[in-house]
Structure formats: C-alpha cells, structure tokens
C-alpha cells in the first residue's frame, strides 16, 4: 500500500487516475482564518490521517462523505466522480456509498444491533438482507449481541456494531473518525488490535483519522499529517516520523522538548555546530524555554551563525546524573536543579531547570535509586545526535 508520492504541483485538480482509490482535492473556507485546503490521492489499504484537534479532520471526512459541500474541488472514488465544482457534479450523500464511522458512532439507540446493521439495506429482499447481516455479525464476533440495544453494549462492542453497520453496505471507501478517542486507554489498545484485524479482513480501503500517536503506530501503513487544514507530510509512518518536517510531525514523532535556538558557531571539522537555546519565547504549543538559555552542541546543518532554528529532543533520550559526569562521549552536559517529578503510567517525567527547562523520562527504579526529589542538583546529559533541528517548517538535512 502506498500514498502516491506526486507533489501537489504536478497534479491538475480533477485529474483522477484509475490507480487512485480515493482522490481528494478540496478547498473549504471555514472561518476568516481557517480554510481546509487538501490535495491527496490514496491507493488501497489503511491510511492514517493524523492531526491535532481542530486541524480540520472531521470536516475533511464530512466533505468526502458528502455531508458538507466543499467550496471548490474534486472528490472521486475508483475513478467515479462524487464531487467536482468545475463540472458541477455533487452526488448526494445518500448515493455515495461511502462507509463512515463517526467519532461518537451514532448508533440508533431505538434499534437492536441487528436492526442497526440492517438499517441501510431496506432495499434488499429480506432473505438477502438477513444473509448479509448474519455474515457481518459472525465476522465481527457480535452474533450473540444481535437483539441487544446499543445502551446495553460495552464500548468495544458498540465500536464493532458501528463498523459492521458501515461495512455491510460494501462501501467503496471506509472513513473512520477517531474511532477509539472516547475509550479508556487499556480498552483502547485491545480494540485497536481488533479493529485492525476487522479492517484487514475486509479489503476495503480505509481512511482513519486520529490525533493519537499510539494509533498511528498500531494501525498505520500509510500516514498523512494534517495541520491547520493542510496536508503537511505523507508517506509510510516510518518515513514520515524518522524525518519530521515540522513541529506537528515532530510532536507526533515524540519530541517532548522543542526549543527556539539561534546558531552561534559552526564547526565544519567536527561535523557539529553550537546553538544558543532558550531566552526567546517559543511556539505556544511547546514547553516554554525559561531561564537564561544554554549552548547546545548539535549536528551540523546548512546554516550560518545567527540563523533561527528549533531543536527537538525526545524526553527518552535525556540522561540525568546526580554527580558531575566525567569521561562521557556526550557533548552536552548541563548543570541544573530538579523542578518536579510526576508519574505517567510507568514513566517518571522529571522536569529540570538547567538554563532551559527540559523534560526527561526516567524509570521508577532510577528515581528511587538516585534518591531524586524536587530541588536535587542534577546534570542533564544530551548527545549531540539526540538534538533534532527544524528550520521554519522544514527539517534540516
């Protein structure tokens, strides 16, 4: 499965190739400062649409399904045009045959599981309808629930009913809008597994929207990152995440620490450079770089002293030491003071002020054996190559 890697410029809007399962090129102004403007083509398989809340994900799905009309553009499935503003085509939502599982599932509360699944099949003969519903009920492993109402189902069971209701229509594309967002974490991981096997069995191309990093890794074959109404990166999750091109992707890739930095000197001979980090207000979504700032040795990127960059450091890549370390290969050793310790699942998040405030992940055992408490003097150790540099929306090479 692959995202067709054509760039937006060498594609004419409205030109669909038979290869494309789903071809979407739409523009919709949602407010004075926010417009959805995307252009992508997907072939079969599961495509993950990742983006923070408010990136326009649900609106995009609504446009594809026909619940919302784009201002302009083109939507086609398997070469069949569903919407085209220049040709004046807008197939009504009831005739698009697109499977859509909503974030809140929207099961009909007054109907049983069986009737929910059969809801869209009223045009079939009773025999054929029952056969299709029965097949889906057994495939999804929910045959025992057939006469229950949605209120009497668990979160995971509802999830499957909603999926069955969409799949029984034999849709040409299946849209899933954050299907796991409302579930508790332990349940979520189990259902993510279920969901993947259900989807993989159907052979239906899937567009899966999420803002959860875990789901990208659990389910994704193919990743598109949506930010503020635009697709900013696409490719396999590995390719996108190992070379993050901007902050949303960086956050997705797991950089808990992102700082504004200024290049101070370049060391061509060592393949590194020195950046002054902190001292200026960073992007509002990230940890504030407080304090006077520090100098970090980072990998060399094409730049000149005075250039503004951003540095991303994964909290799991930071070491803490209670004594001044000697004989280390790591170039960045910063003296600081522990500000706070908090526990998240099995991870201790230690926040250290060492001129900048950084978050480091520790194990419970490390915390206890080092006797760390807020106020402790610690040294923060960061390898040069753990510093990932970003330039104005692009990752530096």
């Amino acid at each position: 499965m692959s995202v067709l890697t054509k760039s937006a410029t060498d594609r004419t809007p409205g030109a669909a190739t038979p290869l494309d399962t789903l071809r979407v090129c739409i523009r919709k102004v949602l407010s004075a400062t926010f417009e959805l403007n995307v252009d992508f083509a997907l072939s079969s398989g599961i495509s993950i649409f990742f983006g923070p809340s408010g990136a326009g994900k649900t609106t995009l799905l609504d446009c594809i399904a026909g619940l919302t009309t784009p201002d302009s553009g083109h939507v086609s499935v398997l070469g069949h045009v569903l919407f085209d503003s220049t040709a004046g085509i807008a197939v009504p939502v009831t005739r698009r045959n697109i499977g859509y599982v909503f974030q809140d599932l929207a099961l009909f509360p007054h109907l049983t599981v069986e009737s929910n699944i059969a809801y869209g099949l009223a045009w079939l003969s009773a025999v054929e309808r029952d056969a299709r519903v029965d097949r889906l009920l057994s495939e999804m492993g929910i045959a025992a629930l057939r006469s229950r109402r949605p209120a009497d189902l668990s979160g995971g069971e509802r999830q499957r009913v909603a999926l069955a209701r969409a799949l029984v229509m034999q849709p040409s594309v299946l849209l899933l809008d954050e299907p796991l967002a409302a579930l508790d974490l332990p349940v979520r991981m189990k259902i993510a597994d279920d969901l993947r096997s259900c989807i993989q069995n159907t052979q239906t191309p899937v567009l899966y929207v999420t803002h959860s990093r875990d789901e990208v890794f659990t389910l994704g074959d193919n990743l598109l990152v949506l930010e503020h109404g635009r697709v900013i990166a696409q490719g396999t999750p590995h390719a996108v995440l190992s070379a993050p091109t901007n902050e949303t992707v960086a956050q997705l890739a797991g950089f808990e620490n992102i700082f504004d930095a200024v290049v101070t000197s370049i060391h061509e001979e060592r393949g590194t450079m020195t950046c002054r980090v902190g001292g200026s207000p960073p992007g509002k979504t990230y940890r504030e770089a407080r304090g006077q700032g520090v100098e970090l040795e980072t990998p060399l990127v094409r730049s000149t002293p005075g250039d503004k960059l951003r540095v991303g450091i994964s909290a799991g890549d930071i070491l803490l030491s209670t004594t001044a370390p000697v004989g280390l290969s790591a170039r960045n050793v910063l003296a600081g003071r522990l500000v706070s310790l908090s526990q998240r699942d099995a991870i201790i998040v230690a926040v250290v002020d060492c001129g900048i405030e950084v978050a480091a992940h520790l194990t419970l055992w490390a915390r206890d054996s080092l006797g760390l408490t807020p106020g402790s003097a610690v040294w923060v150790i960061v390898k040069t190559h753990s510093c990932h540099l970003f330039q104005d929306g692009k990752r530096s090479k």
Partner: protein
Amino acid sequence: MDWQAFGLTIRLATVVTGILVVVGFPLAYWIAFSTWRWKFVVEAIVALPIVLPPTVLGFYVLVAVGQRSPIGRWWQAATGHPLAFTFEALVIGSVLYSLPFAVQPLASSLSAIDRRLLDASAVLGVSKLKTFFRVLVPLSLSGLVAGISLTFTHTMGEFGVVLMLGGNIPGITRTLSINIYDQVQDLNYSAANATALVLVAIAFVLLSVVYSLNRRFWRVWPRI
C-alpha cells in the same frame, strides 16, 4: 351527566388532536432544526396561546370566521351556512388554542436527538423522508405521546374559546365545560360535580401517562 355534551367534547378533542399531530410534527421539526435567525418569532407566536386569555383568542377567531371576513364568506359560499357558531369553528379555535401543547413537547424531544444520527442515516443511503419515519418519529415518541395527551386534555377542558366561538348549542357546540357552567347557573351543584369529576379523572389519567413517559421508554444511550 349530559352524554351528548360528553360525546361532543370527546369528538372535538379527538379531531383537534388529530389535526395537531399532522400540523404540529412538521412545525416542531422546523422549530427543532431550522437555523433561520428569526425562528424565535415563530416560536413566540406558537407559544402565544399559553399566555393569552382564551377570550382574546376566541374574539379574533370569531372575527376571522365571521361573515365579514374572507374566510367566513368563502366558507358560506362553499357550504351554504355560516362558519361561526358551528363545530368547525370550534375546531379552528381549539387547534390554535392547543397548538403550543402539541408543538412544544414534540420540538423539545426532536431537538434532543443527536444530529449525527441523521447524518448516519444519510450516509447509509436512507432519504430524509424515510429517516423522518425511521429515526425521528421513534426517537420523539415520548414527545409525541406527551403532545397528544396534553392536546387532548387541554381541548377537553377548554371554556373561553368555545364560549366565544360556539356559544351554547346542544349537540353542536355545548361541550362539558360549558355544560358545567350551565349546571352551576341552574344551581344544580351535584350535576356540575359529576361532570367536573369526569373531566378531572380524564385529565389525571392522561397526565399520568405523560409523566410516566418522562421516565423514558428505553434507557437513553449513554454517550461513551
């Protein structure tokens, strides 16, 4: 007990309730789903009969159905007799007078329905009209039963509008509430009491139905 008046009252309440279900459902649907900015004006007009004295409403309907109004003249031309002081005039007045009692419970139960259910229905290929009968009607059933019960009870007990519009013609416009008034005028308190008790009993039973339904037919689907 004046059985003729009783029969007439039941007939009036039934006809009015039937008309209001047919008229009230689309109106309630529009109130629940319209995004028109002046919608509140329509809502206020629908609610007017709750606060207006029945005599005011009765007076205007009387003028509207009178021989000098286009409606009254048209009716006379079409049927050969005047509209005022007939059963039909009572129906018109009662429909207007009970309108909020049918529309408001319906509109409130319709607007409590998750819009995403309508989207889900559309995505599954079901037309708006079929969605109305397959999703909206069943999910607003408690509002529908409440609207029917309230309309029926309210129409049965109506006095002012009937008196203004229909007068007191036995078998045509003399309803139970008018009957009670007559019995009291005649100082026949035991007959008035018997008639009044019938009205109280019917109202109590129907209101009990309404309030029992507020506990809902089925548990509402918990939002996960």
